[in-house]
């Protein structure tokens, strides 16, 4: 323990921490897309005020927004095995909980969480599209599905891109909580390295730089995407 801050140690552990990236990215990507699907149905249920389902979605969104993500992760991580044991007992089945990789629990937990937040964002994006657009679609003979998929949703996506992009960045960073379920993602690895050499600060700086790098790359990607979508706003189709 000579140096106060060992750059060498930090550089030395970076390759190992980088091996966590696939876990980080895959949790974020899976949760994002499953979340978008859940969120879309949630939004439609809320907008069309579908009885009963509307209440369920309300409780779901309220619960997820009202509890810390870390708590939700732990609930899923410890809850699903209990649920499976009950199912096994009740129906005489023999699901083996220990065979389920921790990542599956993480996909479930992050997706459920993302779905609730995206329900609200997607609802807002859909409502931001002028009501007259759907009426115009009806007036030319389209049905609700056609009007939604061809007119309203494309416009809602455009409105929503900045929000969804921000959400994804948040999600990328939130995946660090997966270490709580011993998933070897960026944060999990950083913690292990930190403990091994008792050089905590170096390990966490390394993790921070890696998260930052990923987010910068992703932001670049969003800028390109936005430019593509906004191309139309010049007025003439290219």
């Amino acid at each position, binding site marked *: 323990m000579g140096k106060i801050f060992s750059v060498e140690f930090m550089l030395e552990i970076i390759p190992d921490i980088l091996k966590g990236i696939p876990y980080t990215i895959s949790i974020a990507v899976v949760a994002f897309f499953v979340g978008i699907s859940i969120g879309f149905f949630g939004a439609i249920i809320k907008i069309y005020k579908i009885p009963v389902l509307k209440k369920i979605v309300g409780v779901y969104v309220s619960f997820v927004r009202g509890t810390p993500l870390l708590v939700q992760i732990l609930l899923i991580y410890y809850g699903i095995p209990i649920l499976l044991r009950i199912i096994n007992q009740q129906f005489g089945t023999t699901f083996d909980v220990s065979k389920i990789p921790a990542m599956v629990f993480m996909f479930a937990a992050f997706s459920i969480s993302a779905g609730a937040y995206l329900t609200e964002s997607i609802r807002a994006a859909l409502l931001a599209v002028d009501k007259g657009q759907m*009426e*115009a679609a*009806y007036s030319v003979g389209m049905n609700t599905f056609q009007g939604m998929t061809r007119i309203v949703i494309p416009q809602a996506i455009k409105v929503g891109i900045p929000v969804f992009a921000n959400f994804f960045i948040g999600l990328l960073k939130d995946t660090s909580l997966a270490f709580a379920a011993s998933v070897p993602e960026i944060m999990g690895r950083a913690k292990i390295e930190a403990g091994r050499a008792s050089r905590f600060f170096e390990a966490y700086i390394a993790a921070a730089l890696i998260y930052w790098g990923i987010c910068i790359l992703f932001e670049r990607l969003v800028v390109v995407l936005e430019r593509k979508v906004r191309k139309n706003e010049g007025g003439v189709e290219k």
Partner: protein
Amino acid sequence: MIELKGIHKSFKNLEVLKGVDLTVQEGQTVALIGASGSGKSTLLRCINLLETPDKGKIVIGNYSFDADNMKAAVKREARKRTAMVFQNFGLFENKTALENVTEALIVVKKMAKADAEEVGKQYLEKVGLLGKKDHYPNALSGGQKQRVAIARALALEPKIVLFDEPTSALDPELVQEVLGVIKNISKERVTMLIVTHEMDFAFDVADQVAFMDNGTILEVNTPKELFAHPKNKRTRQFINRYTQRFSYTI
């Protein structure tokens, strides 16, 4: 021909349409005038079923339906036979001018894309906007947007085109270009029902003028008769407010 019989419509406790009867003969242009809040927009919206009438019968060509039987399929059939031009244009913001016209031809009428584009270009030509076919709505002036909306409506070849104050959201200098287009299609004997506050235009273009007041149609007549010799007291009052302007045109 389209025929409305005893159309009723209420919003909560507010009875907006109190038994409207109106006939528009094939190839005719009927102007619907009346004070603000008298129910003109609601009537148009009941014809293409953006609002569902509470009571009454609607005949559009050989298709007739009753307010008691408002299944989704009936609504779609009715909407295929009507087209609407909105006050605020209602162009699809994510579609070019041409796509605005072709969209329903492809999606609703199941026309092949190439055929739909041919038709679409013809109608854009008709409203003088073929040159803007690849422009998105946000790159068009209000008048141009409304002309695209008219092209979109005509391309559907509906039994009737419904116009709800097509020029009242336009800057004054753009009103005439849109009225000019409507006047031209009126000459082609497209069946039209036009809600308007432009009395000169109604006088000039309409075959019949219908005066609506407080949820019913009080008087229908040729523009000459209705503006010069209104029979109903309420019509007279309404017309008188425009007399000043009309002394120049008549």
